[in-house]
């Protein structure tokens, strides 16, 4: 097929119209590969390692879906997308799903015609200041007149303005183009404060020469629910991705880990776990998958909690605490509808 296309393009012989696709799930199965849109790099969330293998928290979602659908967590074509190209790539069908720390907003869901299938990380905009400034809170009076490094054209810029207006203080914005530039300016002392998503702040701070000299302020001034998304209109495929993510979450809730999954899959006295892992009921069949789909998804890198700890958790350099991303049973927001 590929060769004929090459010669076709070479000869400008015109392009045969493709067959109208039946559904993304069938396409993915027929292709034997999942086209997963990822970011070009966000520390801890998506990054190729020195051997060129993609690693990260968002990558784990892609791998879980590929394992559930294709029984191979490596049968993925990772398509790197930038903030500018991600939505068109998804809308045009170049990728089957996008797992690229994308904030779930109403306009993206409704106007851009996408289907957010859940939230895998609740982020929010935070602040970093040098410890030497003595600022400990983004609402304290000594924050008045502070210089803030802020990326232009982002929602963070608007959130910042809203925040300072609401506490009735003034600030001096120092516009920068990228996160990297912001750090350079911040380190050079051009601004006292640097604001962006807290997960990004934590990653930046971890790689500073003396992380202990920099403080993340406790305030979070915006909601940034990050989640994978698919195209509108293919609900079967959206269900597969949604319930794969839910399977990872439910596995943590039920205590299924990569270590004990083999044993649990043999059948337990917990009916929901049995339904999840396929020893009971026909949930897999409803998704047009086999009974072991969720087991395979969880086997790749463990449940939600394990993935979190391995990529961005407190044991890693980035060192994010679970916080609002803890299970609902631990007072967090991570919650999956029941497997029934």
């Amino acid at each position: 097929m590929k060769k004929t296309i090459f010669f076709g393009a070479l000869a400008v012989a015109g392009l045969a119209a493709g067959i109208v696709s039946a559904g993304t799930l069938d396409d993915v199965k027929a292709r034997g590969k999942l086209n997963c849109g990822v970011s070009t790099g966000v520390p801890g969330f998506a990054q190729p390692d020195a051997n060129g293998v993609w690693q990260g928290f968002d990558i784990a979602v892609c791998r879980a879906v590929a394992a559930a659908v294709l029984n191979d967590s490596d049968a993925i074509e990772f398509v790197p997308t930038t903030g500018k190209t991600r939505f068109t790539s998804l809308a045009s069908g170049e990728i089957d799903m996008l797992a690229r720390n994308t904030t779930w907003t109403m306009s993206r869901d409704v106007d851009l015609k996408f289907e957010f299938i859940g939230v895998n990380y609740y982020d929010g905009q935070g602040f970093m200041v040098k410890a030497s400034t003595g600022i400990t809170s983004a609402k304290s009076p000594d924050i008045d007149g502070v210089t803030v490094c802020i990326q232009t054209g982002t929602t963070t810029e608007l959130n910042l303005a809203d925040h300072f207006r609401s506490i009735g203080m003034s600030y001096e914005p120092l516009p920068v183009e990228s996160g990297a530039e912001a750090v350079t300016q911040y380190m050079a002392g051009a601004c006292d404060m640097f604001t962006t998503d807290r997960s990004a702040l934590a990653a930046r701070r971890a790689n500073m020469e003396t992380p202990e000299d920099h403080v993340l302020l406790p305030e979070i001034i915006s909601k940034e629910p990050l989640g994978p998304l698919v195209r509108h209109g293919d609900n079967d495929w959206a269900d597969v991705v949604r319930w794969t993510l839910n399977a990872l979450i439910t596995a943590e809730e039920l205590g299924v880990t990569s270590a004990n999954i083999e044993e649990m899959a043999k059948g337990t006295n917990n009916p929901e776990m049995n339904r999840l892992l396929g020893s009971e009921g026909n949930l897999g069949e409803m998704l047009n998958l086999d009974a072991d789909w969720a087991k395979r998804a969880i086997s790749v890198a463990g449940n939600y909690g394990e993935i979190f700890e391995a990529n961005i958790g407190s044991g890693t350099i980035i060192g994010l605490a679970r916080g609002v991303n803890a299970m609902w049973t631990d007072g967090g927001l991570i919650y999956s509808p029941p497997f029934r």
Partner: protein
Amino acid sequence: MAKNNAAFVRHQLIEEQAPPITERGVVKWVRENLFSSPFNVIMTLLSLWVIYSIIAGVAPWFINGVWNANSVRDCYDILDGATGACFAVLKERFPQLIYGFKYPSTEYWRPNTAVILLLFALAPILFRKLPRKFLLFSLIYPFLAYWLIWGGTPLVPVVAFLGFVIGIYCFRRFSANAFALGAIIGVIAANIFWVLGGYVVDANETFLALQAVPSRDMGGFMLNILLGTIAVALSIPLGILLALGRKSNMPIIKWICVLFIEFIRGVPLITLLFVANVILAFFLPPETSIDLILRVIVMMTFFNAAYIAEVVRGGLAALPSGQYEAANSLGLDYSKSMRFIILPQALKISIPGIVNTCVGMLKDTTLVSIISMFDLVGMIRGPILSSTSWNGVYWELFGAAATIFFVVCFSVSKYSQWLERQLETSNR
């Protein structure tokens, strides 16, 4: 009296003596150039101070540079507060900077070979003293390079090459009677051969096959060179044709060329790249997606060709009209007068402009990092700066990228100056 007063005449020359120490060598040069006036003295001292402060500031950074570390934090530990670069990132990620992160490491010899062979392929085009037989290799080279870099079975480029040969043969055969007939028959013959060849290739996928590397896996500086070389090689002939078309007397050809040039020149390259990456995906059916690299090459070729066309048009305009008239009066037809009289002179005038455009093109290939291709800059901005190990190392990486580009672009410009001297025929 007259005899006695005869003037003293020396019979031998006084032996040559060395000029005074202040009038020779370094001292003279320094006095004349650096300390000739009070103003110069001040400027010299000021410049020395500036140079000293730069070196004093930068040297420790280089000398203390850390070459062995696993992450930027290791670097900080080793440096222990001293100023110093973290060159370890270059050491660990060097293959990624050059080849991207997905090109299989066992196959690095293939792009390397392709680059070395490129020098051989360019030589007969650039150096006219070499035997003309070598040009045959230059003709084969693009197909050879395709096989080396993309892998797969060599039948693909062989079929493509033979298709061209057949097409050109048919064209030669039939164009004696009518140019258009020859061109049409040539194109049809080549197409038939390619379609038939496609079946042969599909049936023999593994024949002498190298490991296939999809376009998406190209990256690093290799991608810049790849895009730059192909775009430049294709755009120079296209640009010359466009320039000739724009000066043509035939209104339709002229207006097509003018429209093309003005439209492409009026649009930023990055817009064209977005079209290639994003918009085309909407127009083409999902299953017939053409390689992203191919789409980008087409856009870059168009863009560069439009600029080169204007440079060549400048060269054509610079020729005195006597040259055109001389060609006509010799009874040469259009193609002969262009080939033997006009273009050799016009292109010689255009060399600096063409090289200028092409060096610019090579550097513009870094724009593909914005449409999420991992060229040299894309590798740095994306995977390397976003890795938990190397997040925060900026100067070393971008410095390395600048150095690599400088070396390549400077060599190209030096070469073009040399070429201009070689082609210099007038007595200035």
